[in-house]
């Protein structure tokens, strides 16, 4: 059975985000083969109602962003609302700089971000992984991509613009 079919069936059957590293290990394939299989799935889905979401660490299936309003009409509960200014800038830092530690986030924002990060984690928009001897590092989740209506962060309209600015800034300054 081709790898792309197997991955697609795992995503559909499990219906929750799947860790890419774990799948690569499970199928005993190279990262290249895995990435190639994801490209095949994405291409196949193009014409349909589903999309493959991808972060640096996870993949998941979800409905296409164009269907947002329609699915909303099928739902009983409303999704939780706005993220606020502090939430938005913290998300931006995690999105453009992941994986990133809390102290780095605090330094960029100039304030203690413990509370806002906890709030974002409760909403499932960011997740933390523990790094040995180095506390926690924060990453974005597929749930954040779902709320932004994008299949991966690079498809944000201004992604490369911001990324370039940040890269230039980080390499030229001490």
């Amino acid at each position, binding site marked *: 059975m081709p790898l792309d079919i197997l991955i697609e069936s795992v995503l559909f059957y499990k219906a929750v985000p799947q860790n890419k590293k774990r799948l690569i290990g499970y199928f005993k394939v190279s990262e290249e083969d895995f990435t190639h299989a994801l490209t095949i799935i994405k291409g196949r889905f193009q014409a349909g109602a589903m999309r493959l979401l991808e972060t640096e660490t996870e993949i998941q299936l979800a409905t296409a962003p164009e269907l947002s309003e329609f699915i909303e009409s099928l739902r009983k509960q409303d999704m939780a609302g706005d993220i606020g200014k*502090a939430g*938005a800038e913290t998300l*931006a830092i995690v999105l453009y700089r992941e994986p990133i530690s809390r102290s780095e986030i605090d330094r960029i924002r100039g304030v203690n971000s413990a509370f806002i990060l906890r709030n974002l984690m409760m909403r499932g928009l960011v997740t933390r992984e523990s790094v040995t001897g180095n506390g926690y590092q924060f990453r974005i989740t597929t749930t954040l991509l*779902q709320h932004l*209506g994008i299949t991966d962060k690079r498809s944000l309209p201004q992604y490369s613009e911001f990324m370039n600015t940040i890269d230039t800034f980080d390499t030229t*300054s001490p």
Partner: protein
Amino acid sequence: MSTAVAIKTETFEGPMELLIELVEKRKLLINDISLAKVTDEYMQTVRDMQEMSLPNTAQFITLAATLLLIKSKSLLPALDLTSEESASIEDLEERLKRYQIYRDAGIELQSRFGKNIMYESEYTPPRDPLFLPDIFCDSAELGTAMYRVLNNLPKIEIKPTAKLRPTISLEEMIDRLQKRIEQQLQTSFSEIRATETEHKNVIVSFLAILELFKMGNIIITQADRFGDINLESDRVHTPRYY
């Protein structure tokens, strides 16, 4: 002081947020000139925050010291900055520019957030679920797990200001200086500098002098370009009526 437009309703989580807002409101780029321009308004906002006894004012005051340093350099170009002082100014500009990028990126995220949500499958629990207990399904194990949960609850935050060395407030410093100037009638900055041991206080005291100067309470003279700065209370020359 009267020209400063006080920001009344908005609350700022941190000093960077406030500072960016002030610079952008004037459609300025981040540099020493624009920062000098917004210093008064920044000081006013921090003063208002102090009066409302908002939390975290300490970090606003720390940044105020750097801002006033920038401002004083713009008022007195002859002012000789130590390398440490120059570094703190550069560092502030740097941090502010960096913050601005993420703040802008955040605005883009906020405008998209929740507009076109991509939904995962709705979860429906199985009608007749299996029963698959494991090693954790034991009251002692669950007690341990609960203990871990409670241990990880966010600690009721001990006010971060308590941990820091008490930062002197701008008003305190202005008061102290005013009294001293009135006593001595004439003093010089190097004298103040010698009596203040902590670097931060040197900054604050110097800038407080400039504040006094601006308010018309003292006269500053500098004999030659790199000479000492002399301070004089102008009360003797122009009596004030209260």
